[in-house]
């Protein structure tokens, strides 16, 4: 079969109907709508081609945007894949509450995965150090959850403007059967044609927000009125100053010996685990204020920036190991 000789070449011709489509007018959409369209295209393409997609839902602002895009992509249908949250059990209670409520509200299937074995063995960042703790509670937990669910594709909310090794990552990021990324062996990615072919055990991380910047994310949240975890907005919290960072303390268990809490108006720029997420002093309690703050931060970051090649290399290494 498949033995098609040259004589067999055949073509279909289509009769031109008489009607002409409306004349072209210079239709245009703004850049946010263009990014939105691109992301929707990616989400649909992956769902059409992968047997078992899942969305890595981190509860953060990027995840919130990704979730809205998924709602749009499959409307009026429901989101045709589950959301997976890797719960380290050190997440802010506001995050967990938001996660459960929001997933219910939009009718999405939610899978929460914990590395219970490591937690039972007492894994925490104070004993293990952050790197090892992340390795067990995040990276390992994620790889386990993906394997358990037999997921062939996982959507992630990472953006290429986040850090330098991401800048080179494909929209479809291939992972071998150990969940690892090989930056030297990425598939070329041209136009919007994605190669979703994988063998058993391999998977692909799909990044629909690849071309979004932090500013785009905030503008879109504003434009679309997307709910986000209240911790992004400035509020008075109990905090301790630890190693130069402002860390929110919920109760006395969050304190190290000798630490005392104080009241401070702070907000989170990104959401992670309670002990390892630094808050910033800020009074930005509305989206316009957050956006204003973000733009002026960018200025100061630029001016004070120390280019740290070490750090960037280490991120590439972390990702090769399977980190998201």
């Amino acid at each position, binding site marked *: 079969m498949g033995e098609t000789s040259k004589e067999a070449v055949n073509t279909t011709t289509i009769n031109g109907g008489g009607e002409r489509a409306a004349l*072209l007018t210079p239709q245009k*959409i703004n850049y946010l709508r263009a990014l939105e369209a691109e992301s929707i295209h990616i989400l649909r393409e992956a769902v059409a081609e992968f047997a078992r997609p899942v969305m890595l839902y981190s509860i953060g602002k990027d995840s919130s945007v990704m979730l809205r895009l998924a709602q749009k992509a499959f409307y009026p249908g429901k989101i045709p894949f589950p959301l997976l949250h890797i719960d380290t059990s050190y997440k802010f209670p506001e995050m967990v509450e938001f996660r459960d409520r929001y997933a219910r509200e939009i009718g999405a299937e939610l899978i929460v995965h914990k590395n219970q074995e490591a937690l039972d063995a007492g894994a925490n960042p104070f004993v293990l150090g952050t790197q090892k703790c992340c390795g067990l509670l995040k990276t390992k937990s994620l790889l386990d959850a993906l394997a358990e669910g037999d997921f062939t594709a996982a959507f992630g909310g990472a953006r290429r403007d986040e850090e330098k090794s991401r800048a080179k990552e494909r929209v479809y990021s291939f992972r071998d059967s150990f969940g690892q990324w090989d930056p030297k062996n990425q598939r070329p990615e041209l136009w919007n044609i994605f190669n979703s*072919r994988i063998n058993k055990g391999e998977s692909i991380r799909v990044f629909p927000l690849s071309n979004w910047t932090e500013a785009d994310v905030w503008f879109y949240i504003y434009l679309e*009125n997307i709910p986000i975890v209240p911790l992004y907005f400035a509020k008075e919290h109990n905090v301790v100053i630890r190693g130069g960072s402002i860390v929110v303390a919920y109760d006395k268990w969050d304190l190290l010996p000798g630490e005392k809490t104080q009241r401070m108006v702070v907000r989170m720029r990104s959401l992670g685990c309670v002990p390892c997420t630094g808050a910033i002093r800020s009074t930005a309690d509305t989206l316009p204020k957050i956006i204003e703050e973000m733009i002026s931060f960018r200025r100061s970051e630029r001016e004070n920036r120390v280019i740290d090649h070490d750090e960037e290399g280490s991120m*590439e290494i972390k990702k090769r190991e399977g980190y998201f």
Partner: protein
Amino acid sequence: MSLVANREAWGFESFMKQNLEKDLLRLTTAGSVDDGKSTLIGRLLHDSKSVFEDQLAAVKKSRINRSTGAVDFSLLTDGLRAEREQGITIDVAYRYFETPLRKFIIADTPGHEQYTRNMATGASTANLAVILIDSTKGVLAQTRRHTYIASLLGIPNVLVAINKMDLVNYSEEVFLTLQKDFDALAKQLAVPHVVTIPISALAGDNVVERGVHMPWYHGPTFLEHLETVPIRMETPSDAVRFPVQYVIRPDASFRGFAGPVASGVIRPGDPVVSLPSERKTRVKSIVTFDGDAPEAFPPMSVTLTLEDEIDLSRGDMLVSPAHPPRASRHFDAMVVWFNAEPTEPGKSYLLKHTTRTVRAKALQFRYRVNVNTLAHEPVSSLHMNDIGYVEFETVSPLFFDPYTENRITGSFILIDPISNATLGAGMIRADLADQTAAEPSTKEFAPVTAGERYMRHGHMPALIVVEGNIALATRLERALFDEHFEVLHVSGDALPVSALENQFAAFASAGLVVVYSCAALSPGEKRKLGNLAADRYFDLSALQLPAEEIDAARQILALLQSLRVVVDGGNPGNVI
């Protein structure tokens, strides 16, 4: 839950309004090592941020105190040198910046190894190519190569930056000579829109600010040009192309076809033809999460509902009846080859074109382009980073336009069916159907080929083995028949497995899908049948089927769609 009550503050509304008028320009940069690409991009990222912040300051009616300390701009991007020293991957990197007028995505493509691959990747989505020329070196072989790739990938705008003008005393004469040299090249390559700008990436002249050194230059600065160049559609076209990507069917009452608008403007009521079925219907509505839309156009991704219930699934295409695309299994394309292994004659590749993946063969290598001299050289295969003109044949027809008319329906990638690597990328030049038709038909009295049968049936032959469940086999035959498969249920009582082994070749050459129901088979028997039908052997006992026959039949049906069009990612079904 939303906390956006307070929307007043610092002229935010007007800031947002301005912001939402911006459009998006995608550009790619090319230059030889040390031409100053990192310095230029670094400066652009740096200086344009100030521009953006000035806009913010303007709406806030306060001044931002801009610092202008000495910065090594090339450090803002990955200096190629730094990357090489540290063994960090050299690959296309994407960078982002914006100004009050536009948002920009730069595909930064490092030179040297893998150059052709990297640049082709960056160029594939670009609206504009920046070609860097070192004023002390002039137009080099590399410049020729970069410009050729930019034109091959159909980038509508080229911006030539003549860099390091400070090293030639900001001489107008040097600039004019280089401009003339490049124009000659652009003419040879038929590059349509070229603008040449003299700059010093290091000193900043004509990058964002004009500077004082080149009063003889009256054109736009580099950034001004980026901000104002028309974002040309490759081909403003009123020919609708809507590749069906996914069928949305949440319940019996709704059936929507999701996909990108590849070209044309779609409005409710417009007539459309579906391919390959050639059924005519009209667009009923354009459904979006934000309500029905009055029209859809590129680059929107939308969902269409149609007036009539027509058979339509992923891989099909809706087009305007007045301007249909070519539909053919036989075409010529320019191919960029990425893989370390060269092309193999007669090998069957997977070809992914819009939302359709089919098997394809390269029949003939017409020539290879020497990217430095642009000469055509005869070849019998393509090696890594080669660009060549290749004649293809696919197992089922593609619906396409020449790449020069439509970058979406004119492009494809080639995938290795075993390793799954992306091997190459193709740009369709010509449909060979007309030529074939024009030739006096030699096939009139020739034997009917498998390919011709395939064209008629619309699917490949197959063997499906159902053990111990005649009811399912019968149901399957019915379901397949209703889906227009040429199908035959053969019972093991009538035809024992040893007899089937002898007969299957005849069934297959007739193009039939055979559903064979029988008692349990031995592993040896299965192996034999498997060898007969190769990758079109389906052993249902190997699948975990739903208990209900009707559900099982549906699942199998989805699986068999692969006989029509090869599908990817292990997901045979494309209908929810």
